[in-house]
């Protein structure tokens, strides 16, 4: 019956639910996006393990992969010096070169990344956690062979998918594709063009600088000490004072934590904003319920005259109000999911990266739904009580 009554007053019910479903939609989409962003950022770094430090040169804000375009690049003999610091297992130069990638007579942009040889390859592979979907990973002695990121399986890049065994032109030099990596969910790796260090330097030129130095520490509990030592060394080598560093030493794990906490704060902010809109929605529901109680005073009188107890009347309006909230919540969730995935899709097509991924969990959905129901019932509490207390005779005499 509560449901039936809602049906009878469609427009007002919808208007009332507006507040609720805007609020819920905001919560679902933004929390969903936030979770997605979190996942995306986590995978963006590509490194796993809390025992890795990355050294990059800092300077002008630049576009492109980390460490490129800094005014004072890192010289590549630093790695050997860092390796001598106690507690460091290995320091590996990583070169990033941007160039053109040609396949199927179409040109595109490619970021070539170096893969070290020898023992360092093993360490690096462990750090990056790479796996081949097609073909194999690079090994020592591979010359003009490339390992490509998963996104090249997508035919939209070059009109048809690249598969292992194909030939591509990197800066007009012919390379054979040795394998395609499994999807990492990270722009950097899914678009990556991996080449052995020697070959990369031979083909792209070696200017004695590197983009990233990846430092693996032996004991992760001592990573902070190692970080300080590396910084000290770099300050000395590059002749800069404390506070004026033109480089940064960071552990991806740490950065992640920082970003996650910022993201968390942003999410909380959004949740608070959404809560305000939900409260407004709740007040809207309360208002509708008061009007509804007034309008149906006569009906209350009739119900009482045929034996409905106060409790029944209360429940009738209480549930109706909760239901109003719930329906608003359902619409809000649907809207929110659509919005989250829509924005993620927009992000993907505009930025061409998997940076934003929507991820709406079941918990979020059920949480929002029960929350909206509770808001509805809370808003209905007073009107329902008022309805139940109406005197039957007065209620029956009530004329619209």
């Amino acid at each position, binding site marked *: 019956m509560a449901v039936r*009554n809602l049906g009878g007053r469609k427009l007002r019910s919808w208007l009332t639910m507006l507040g609720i479903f805007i609020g819920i939609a905001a919560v679902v989409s933004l929390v969903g996006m936030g979770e997605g962003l979190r996942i995306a950022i986590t995978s963006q770094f590509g490194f796993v393990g809390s025992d890795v430090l990355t050294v990059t040169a800092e300077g002008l804000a630049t576009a492109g992969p980390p460490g490129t375009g800094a005014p004072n690049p890192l010289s590549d003999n630093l790695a050997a010096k860092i390796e001598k610091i106690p507690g460091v297992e290995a320091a590996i130069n990583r070169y990033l070169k941007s160039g053109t990638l040609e396949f199927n007579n179409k040109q595109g942009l490619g970021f070539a990344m170096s893969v070290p040889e020898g023992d360092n390859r093993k360490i690096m592979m462990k750090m990056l956690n790479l796996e081949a979907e097609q073909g194999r990973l690079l090994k020592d002695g591979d010359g003009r062979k490339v390992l490509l990121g998963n996104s090249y399986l997508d035919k939209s890049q070059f009109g048809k998918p690249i598969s292992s065994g194909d030939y591509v032109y990197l800066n007009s030099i012919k390379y054979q594709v040795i394998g395609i990596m499994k999807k990492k969910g990270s722009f950097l790796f899914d678009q990556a063009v991996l080449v052995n260090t020697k070959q990369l330097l031979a083909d792209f030129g070696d200017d004695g600088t590197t983009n990233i130095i990846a430092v693996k520490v032996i004991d992760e509990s001592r990573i902070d000490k190692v970080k300080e030592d590396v910084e000290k060394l770099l300050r000395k080598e590059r002749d800069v004072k404390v506070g004026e560093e033109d480089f940064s030493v960071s552990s991806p794990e740490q950065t992640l934590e920082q970003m996650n906490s910022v993201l968390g704060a942003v999410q909380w902010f959004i949740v608070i904003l959404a809560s305000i809109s939900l409260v407004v929605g709740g007040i809207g529901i309360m208002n509708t319920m008061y009007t509804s109680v007034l309008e149906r005073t006569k009906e209350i009188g009739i119900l009482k005259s045929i*034996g409905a107890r106060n409790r029944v009347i209360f429940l009738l309006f209480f549930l109706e109000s909760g239901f109003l909230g719930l329906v608003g919540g359902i619409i809000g969730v649907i809207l929110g999911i659509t919005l989250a995935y829509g924005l993620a899709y927009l992000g993907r097509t505009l930025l061409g990266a998997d940076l934003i991924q929507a991820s709406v969990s079941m918990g979020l959905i059920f949480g929002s739904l029960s929350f909206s129901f509770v808001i509805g019932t809370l808003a209905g509490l007073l009107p329902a009580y008022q309805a139940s207390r109406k005197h039957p005779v007065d209620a029956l005499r009530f004329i619209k």
Partner: protein
Amino acid sequence: MKKAIIKLDNVWKTYTMGNVKVHALRGLSLTIKDGEFVCIYGPSGSGKSTAMNMVGCLDIPSQGDIFLKGKNIAHLSESDLAQIRGKTIGFIFQQFNLINTLSALENVMLPMVFQGYSEQARRARAIKLLDMVDLAKRMDHKPTELSGGQQQRVAIARSLSNNPEVILADEPTGNLDSKTGNKIMDFLRTMNKKEKKTIIMVSHDQSLAKYADRIEYLRDGSIIETKNNGKR
């Protein structure tokens, strides 16, 4: 002789509006026996509806006692009143007072919901009752799709749904033309004779009063004359 089912004993009802006191009932005493068909007759404002509300457990008196089946209901709580009302009293109103969002069948089923009957039992009984008032074919219609007379017949069926001992009808034909009104009165008469229901009807229409066994003349909140309709 039959026992009294309803007894009003020196009942007063006073409404206070601002600092003006309106005495709707002034020491009304009335006894109604099981199976009787009584008409309370009186001019507008004489307190007929107020008296009905007291008998129907919709309201409690300011003073005096009301006995329903020997039980004093003058001081009961609202919840207890609702329960007694649902079980023992069936209301028929001048304005029909059906719930417009529900079908005829659902309207008749509704009082049984509050007494905790099963869905099947409710449906079966409601269909039977609607059949009795010749509305079996219209049971899925909404009240707004029915004529006044038909709506009042639905209301009669509804008043009977919990098989109450007493049926209260406050000007049941007030909104109907005389022909339809007579038909409704015939139904009430049948309820009284066949189902042995006690019927109390309020009217200010002399022509309807003849349907009753007894007419109580009410003026200014108390009975001024009682007339028996002899054998009928």
